[in-house]
C-alpha cells in the first residue's frame, strides 16, 4: 500500500493522515517520487518544490504529533497552476515575460490552501497567460495527456489536469475563463469544477479576462472537489467581486440522491460538432440519472451558438488591458533593447509575448477603438445578456443542464497548428457558464479510443451544491473515475 499512496484520492489520504495510518511526509514523498518517475514524459510541472513540500508535510506531522486538530486538506499534496502567485516560488504564467518573476505575495487561494495545511508540490503548466486550449501555447513546453502521450491534455489548465490524472498530485488548482478547468479535466479523465463567479477570490491570480476568470479545483473525484472547495471559497476583502455569503461545507452536498431532479437537455448542446461517441456517452449518463429517479426535459438555449464569438470579443477586450501591465518596468524580463521608455515597453512585449497572446491583444485593442466599440464590444455584451436570459428561462424548467464538456476527446499535439481558430471549438460547450457566471463541473463518463469523455453538469447561480450532488450521484453509480492511465 505504502508505495502506491499517490494512487489514492485526497479524501482517502486525509482519512489515513488524520488517523495516523500514514505520515504526511510519506504521502508527500510518494507523490514526489511519482513526479520523478513520470513527469519527464507527462511534463505537467513548470516548477516543482520538493524541499518546501516536505517541510510543509513535516509541519503537518508535527502538529498531529502535538495532538493539534488539523483540517481535511492537511498534508494533502496539490499542484497550483502557474498563473497563481505563490510567495517566493517562481510564477511564470508559461510566458517568456515572467521567466524571472518570483512573487512577493501569495494569491488568496494559495494562502488559503497553505492555511488549510495543504502541501504544494509545484506549479503546473498552462497556455501562456491561460490563452489556449491545449498547453501548446506555453512558452515552456507542451504537456502530454497521460492517457496517450501523443495527445494534448487540454488547456489552459492542462498541466493541472495532467498532473492529477498521472497521480503527480492529489489535487490541483486551475483557472477557468472559457472552460480552462473543465475542458482539460474532460480530456484527462478527472473532475474539474468552475464555481459560481465570485465564490472564489481571484486576488493574486494573473487576470486574463476579469469578468470571466474563476479559480476551480481539478480532482480525482467529486468528494475531493468538495474538500478543496471548502478550503478556497469565501469572501475576500482583496477581491471586490467576491460574494459576501456565509461559509459552506460543500461535503454536505455529497449525497447519492437525484430523485425528482429535473435535467435540462438542450439540442443546441448536441450540434453537429459533437462527436457521435461523445454524444452517446453523455446521453447514456443522462439515462443513468433517469434510472435513479431524475427526469429529463428538452430546453431551448437559442443564443448559445453566438457564445464563442461573444466570448472571443469580451476576452480579447478585457485581456488587452489586464495584460498591459507586462511592460518590463516593474517586474519580469525587460528587453535589452531599452532605448527610451516607450521603446523598452514595446520591445519587452514584442519579445516576451507569444503569438496567441499577441493576436488576442491586437484584436482587443482594435475592438476598443473608434466605432468597433459599439459594433463589436457592445454587441458582444448584448449577446452575453441574451445568453444569461436563455439560462434564466431554462432554469425555470429544470434544475441542472447536462451536455458534453467538449465536442471531442483529446486531439493530437500539433493537430491544429495550422488552424488555431478551429481549436476554439474546444470551448464550444464550456464558454457559456463563464459568460453567465454559473457553476459547471466536468466528470468522466466514458472513453473513446482509450481517451476519456467528459460529462458537463451546469447549474443555477450559487447552486453549486446541487451540481456536486448530481455529479457525486453519477460518479458513485459508475466507475469511470476509478480508471487510471498506464504510464509505466
Amino acid at each position, binding site marked *: 500500500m505504502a508505495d502506491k499512496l499517490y494512487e489514492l484520492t485526497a479524501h482517502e489520504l486525509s482519512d489515513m493522515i488524520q488517523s495516523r495510518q500514514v505520515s504526511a511526509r510519506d504521502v508527500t514523498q510518494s507523490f514526489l517520487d511519482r513526479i520523478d518517475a513520470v513527469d519527464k514524459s507527462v511534463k505537467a510541472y513548470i516548477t516543482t518544490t520538493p524541499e518546501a513540500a516536505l517541510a510543509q508535510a513535516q509541519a503537518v506531522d508535527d502538529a498531529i504529533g502535538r495532538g493539534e486538530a488539523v483540517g481535511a486538506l492537511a498534508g494533502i499534496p496539490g499542484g497550483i497552476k502557474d498563473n497563481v502567485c505563490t510567495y517566493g516560488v517562481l510564477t511564470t504564467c508559461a510566458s517568456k515575460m515572467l521567466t524571472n518573476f518570483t512573487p512577493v505575495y501569495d494569491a488568496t487561494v494559495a494562502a488559503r490552501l497553505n492555511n488549510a495545511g495543504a502541501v504544494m508540490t509545484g506549479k503546473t503548466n498552462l497556455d501562456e497567460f491561460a490563452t489556449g486550449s491545449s498547453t501548446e501555447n506555453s512558452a515552456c513546453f507542451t504537456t502530454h495527456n497521460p492517457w496517450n502521450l501523443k495527445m494534448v491534455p487540454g488547456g489552459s489548465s492542462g498541466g493541472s489536469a495532467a498532473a492529477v490524472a498521472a497521480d503527480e498530485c492529489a489535487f490541483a488548482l486551475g483557472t477557468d475563463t472559457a472552460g480552462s478547468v473543465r475542458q482539460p479535466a474532460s480530456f484527462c479523465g478527472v473532475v474539474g469544477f468552475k464555481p459560481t463567479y465570485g465564490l472564489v477570490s*481571484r486576488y493574486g491570480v494573473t487576470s486574463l479576462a476579469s469578468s470571466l476568470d474563476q479559480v476551480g479545483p481539478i480532482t480525482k473525484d467529486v468528494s475531493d472537489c468538495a474538500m478543496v472547495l471548502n478550503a478556497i471559497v469565501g469572501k475576500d476583502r482583496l477581491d471586490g467581486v467576491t460574494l459576501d455569503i456565509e461559509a459552506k461545507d460543500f461535503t454536505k452536498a455529497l449525497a447519492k440522491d437525484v430523485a425528482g431532479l429535473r435535467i435540462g437537455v438542450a439540442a443546441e448542446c448536441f450540434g453537429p460538432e459533437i462527436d457521435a461517441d461523445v454524444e452517446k456517452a453523455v446521453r447514456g449518463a443522462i439515462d443513468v440519472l433517469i434510472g435513479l429517479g431524475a427526469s429529463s426535459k428538452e430546453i431551448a438555449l437559442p443564443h448559445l451558438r453566438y457564445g464563442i464569438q461573444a466570448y472571443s470579443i469580451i476576452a480579447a477586450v478585457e485581456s488587452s488591458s489586464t495584460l*498591459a*501591465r507586462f511592460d518590463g518596468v516593474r517586474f519580469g524580463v525587460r528587453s535589452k533593447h531599452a532605448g527610451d521608455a516607450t521603446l523598452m515597453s514595446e520591445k519587452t512585449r514584442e519579445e516576451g509575448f507569444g503569438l496567441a497572446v499577441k493576436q488576442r491583444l491586437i484584436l482587443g485593442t482594435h475592438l476598443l477603438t473608434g466605432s468597433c466599440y459599439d459594433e463589436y464590444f457592445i454587441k458582444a455584451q448584448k449577446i452575453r445578456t441574451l445568453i444569461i436570459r436563455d439560462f434564466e428561462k431554462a432554469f425555470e424548467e429544470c434544475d441542472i443542464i447536462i451536455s458534453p464538456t467538449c465536442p471531442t476527446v483529446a486531439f493530437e499535439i500539433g493537430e491544429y497548428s495550422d488552424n488555431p481558430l478551429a481549436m476554439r471549438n474546444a470551448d464550444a460547450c464550456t464558454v457559456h457558464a463563464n459568460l453567465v457566471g454559473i457553476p459547471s463541473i466536468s466528470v468522466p463518463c466514458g472513453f473513446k479510443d482509450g481517451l476519456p469523455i467528459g460529462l458537463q453538469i451546469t447549474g443555477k447561480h450559487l447552486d453549486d451544491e446541487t451540481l456536486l450532488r448530481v455529479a457525486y450521484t453519477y460518479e458513485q453509480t459508475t466507475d469511470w473515475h476509478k480508471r487510471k492511465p498506464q504510464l509505466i
Partner: protein
Amino acid sequence: MVEYEPVIGMEVHVELLTKSKMFCGCEVAFGGAPNTRCCPGCLGLPGGLPVVNEKAVELMTKAALALHCEIAPRTIFHRKNYFYPDLAKNYQVSQFDKPLGENGYVEILAGGKPKKIAVRRVHMEEDTGKLLHVEGNRSLVDFNRSGMALMEIVTMNPPPPGFDQIESAEEAREYLQRLRQILLYLEVSDCRMEEGSMRCEPNISIKPKGQTKLGTKTEIKNLNSFRAVYMGVDFELKRQEKVLREGGKVVQETRRWDDDRGVTASMRSKEHAEEYRYYPDPDLSPMLFDEEYVGRIQAQIPELPLDRLRRFMADYGIS
C-alpha cells in the same frame, strides 16, 4: 481690429484626505522614501485587484454635493488605457460617461459681483506614480502616489442658461480659490498646490467676439500656485492673441508653465485625438447611491464660505 474673447476651461485634480489609497489599503502620505507605500494592487503586479475605498467615495460625494451637483444613482468605473511608465497597470481606473456628480456650479465673486461657474462633472479616479529623471539619462519611478484617490472637477463651456463661465485669468484664479475654500471647509482635501494635492490644468482658447465656433485650445501644466495660475492663463491668452494677430495658427498642444521665466513653452502636441479605449472595469462592481445615502452625506456638509460671508453681512451689517 478684431476683438477676441477667451474661453477658459478648468480641469482640477484634488487628492483626497483619506488614510489609504483609492483601491487598496496602502497609506497615503506626502514625501518619504520612494516605493515604501505600495502593494500588488497599486504596483500593478500580476494578480493585484482594486477594492473601492468607501471613505473616498463618501468624501467625493460630499464635494460633489457641495458643488451643487446631481449625484448619479448608479455610477461605474472605467479603464482608461494608455502606456506610460508611471502608470502601474498601464490603464488608469477612472470614470467616463457615468461620473459620480454632474451639472453643478461654483459661486465666485468677479469684481464683487457673484457668478455661478458651471461645473460639468465631478469624478473619481486614481493617481499615477511619479517619474524622477536622474543623471546619466535615466529615469526612476516612485509608486508611493500610485493609486491615491483623486477627484477631478471640470467646468462646463459654454455654460447652460443661468450659469456663467470663466472669462479672465483673474476669474480663473478666483474660481480655484473658491473651490479650494469649499474643499477645505469640507475637509475633503488639504488642497496644497505646491505639494500637488491640488492640481490645475486650464484649457485655453480665444475666438473673435460673438463667434460660436471655438478656437484651437492649449492645455497648461505645471501651475503650482494661485499666482502661477493667474500668470500662466494671462500669458497664454496674450500669446494666443499675438499668434492670431500675426496671422499665425494656434497649435493644439500641452504647454508647460515656466515659473522662473514667466512663459509657457510647448511640451507635446495634441494634434491627434487621444484614444483611451475606455471600457467599464470588470474588477469593480457598479456603485448605487440611494436617497438615504445622499441625504446622510448632505447632512454632513457645513455652512460653506460664501454662505457664511453673506450671513455675517446680513446678521452683523458688515459690508
